[in-house]
């Protein structure tokens, strides 16, 4: 029974990591850039939920309103970031990592100045309070809900990427930017769109996280390193890899934590990832192109 409890805890943590990393994986795959402000887009999503609750009032409705709105807020922030800074720096991917870190710093302070330093609270709707007990395993409804949100996000994203013309364009650019451009796909427009969707995912993640933890200016920093690791372990531009990596990391963290302590578990997870990279660096590397670097 404990094992089952932990299994669920691991899956749930995996779904949280997945939500945090999904958009990152998309933008990273697209441009080879890791957006350090991704965590702050999540924070923006969380504050969106807070503001929506203040306006709408009813907790039950506000969460459902906040999800698409969070997507929009995160997405627009991403668009602005892409249009002002990142698009100038495609050929300096490491520099974008630093620039977005600066952006993250500023966004945190903005949140502090706008919403105040103390945490704020978003009340979970009534229909998500408590747990469902299945065969002696208590499954908190909030976690089930987040799991569902993650599944829906992945499914939607996969559907969009596989089955729509838009998705084909994104995949074409991700897999072979030059070739895609040569065949008339506007990589500029596709970049923007990808960044919008990826950042929007961060917004959704932020809204979902209000059900689990604190909503404060530093919300993003607690997730960003883990989200990075998921993307790295998962490989570039492949949703499948991200899903597997997030689930594996969640389960590992959860079972390590169960058998040791939370601190040791975190360190162990890092060690496993470094070791994994030693064994399968090719899991990280994109398809080789014939031109050099």
């Amino acid at each position, binding site marked *: 029974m404990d094992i089952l*409890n932990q299994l669920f805890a691991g899956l749930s943590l995996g779904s949280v990591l997945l939500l945090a990393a999904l958009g990152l994986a998309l933008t990273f795959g697209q441009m080879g850039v890791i957006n350090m402000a991704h965590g702050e887009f999540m924070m923006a999503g969380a504050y969106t939920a807070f503001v929506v609750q203040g306006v709408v009032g009813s907790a039950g409705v506000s969460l459902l309103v906040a999800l698409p709105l969070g997507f929009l807020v995160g997405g627009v922030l991403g668009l602005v970031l892409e249009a002002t800074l990142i698009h100038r720096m495609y050929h300096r991917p490491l520099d974008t990592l630093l620039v977005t870190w600066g952006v993250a710093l500023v966004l945190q302070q903005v949140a502090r100045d706008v919403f105040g330093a103390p945490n704020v609270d978003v009340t979970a709707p009534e229909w998500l309070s408590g747990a469902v007990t299945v065969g002696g395993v208590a499954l*908190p409804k909030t976690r089930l809900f987040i799991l569902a949100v993650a599944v829906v996000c992945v499914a939607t994203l996969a559907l969009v990427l596989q089955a729509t013309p838009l998705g084909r364009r994104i995949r074409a650019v991700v897999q072979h930017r030059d070739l895609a451009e040569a065949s008339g796909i506007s990589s500029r427009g596709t970049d923007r769109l990808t960044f919008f969707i990826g950042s929007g995912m961060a917004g959704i993640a932020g809204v979902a996280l209000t059900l689990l*933890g604190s909503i404060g200016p530093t919300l993003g920093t607690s997730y960003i390193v883990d989200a990075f690791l998921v993307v790295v372990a998962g490989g570039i531009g492949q949703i499948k890899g991200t899903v597997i990596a997030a689930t594996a990391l969640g389960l590992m963290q959860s079972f390590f934590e*169960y058998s040791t302590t*939370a601190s040791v578990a975190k360190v162990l997870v890092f060690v496993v990832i470094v070791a994994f990279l030693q064994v399968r660096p090719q899991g990280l590397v994109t398809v080789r192109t014939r031109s050099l670097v």
Partner: protein
Amino acid sequence: MRLRTHAGTRSLGVLSIAALAVTALTACGAQVDAAGADPSAGTADSCVDTSGDTVRIGFLNSLSGTMAISEQTVHDSLQLAAAEINADGGVLGKQLEVVTEDGQSEPTVFAEKATKLITSDCVAAVFGGWTSASRKAMLPVFESNDSLLFYPVQYEGLEASPNIFYTGATTNQQIVPALDYLAEQGVESLFLVGSDYVFPRTANKIINAYAEAHGIEVLGEEYAPLGHTDFSTIVNKVRSADADAVFNTLNGDSNVAFFKEYSNAGLAADEMPVLSVSIAEEEIGGIGVENVEGQLTAWNYYQTVDTPENAAFVEAFKAEYGEDRVTSDPMEAAYDSLHLWKGMVEKAGSFAVADVQEAADGVSFDAPEGTVTVDGDNHHIAKTALIGRIGADGLIHTEWSSDGPIEPDPFLEGYDWADGLS
């Protein structure tokens, strides 16, 4: 050819630097024998200027960074106290001139700013600090410069510096009474949850010793890294242990994630109460009242404490900072600290550190929490312990109170069961 001469000049440069360094080394000051120096043998002379109509004091709180959430509130109440004292005629007839520094939530910055306040701004005393790390970082600064720090937060004890006054609770004024209360309530088993740092670890050592002596079973002890956000595993462990109560020493944001998980997992205050020692009024809003309603806390002050001094304090605070603001234990302790310093200075008739230390014993103040008195030996203050229950209004209501103020005992020397602890 050229290269060689070039290299020649360069190594000459290195040589001259080395020579300089050696000169510096040989020309330097006091050596310490292996046994160590007397820590109080500070070499710097005080530069505090008391000749004018004003006297400078320093407020050192984190106004930026992760701790700003908590320390800003302490800073606010210190400002309130300073304004009140100034309006009331100052200290020894001198108006207080406050120098504010930002500790930036980093221990090294606290040490740096403390040095600046003491040596550059020449303040008569410094008020502030929150985390143990910040206090530990500042302690040698105050000792070596022989200056005074007033530290307003409950902490893990095991410390008594002549240069620090501790106006928050030490362990026997918070942890021990909380355990007494739980024992009184018939709690026979406990689960300990804490953040992974010095206060929870020390607190849990004490709790374990207490539990062993009082026949309480500790069913589990879990630590989460600071900033940990996923408590499903820990809550799973808590649930399967099924203790009578949970003793919570989590810090900051982690409380939010913990309590949300706790209530989402279907655990409730009436079945398995959580007693927290780091959640005060201002944190409750962030956690969400619905998640902590009915849970217990242990402090020495609540906004709801029924004394005329508190009514005045709360009213003044709200008038200054807004009706929606709340007051909490560390804020009140900080407020007290400035008044206690005033009392000590006026008793001594001097701002000099040695005179203040000399006069400290027995100085008391009718604080919002009730009368508090300074212990001249360990520089802590006698305080009344209060166990509170979090109400639906987001405030904490006193549930149980110790029999009058408890004398501070930072090393738990007066408790037999605590023999092996330090």
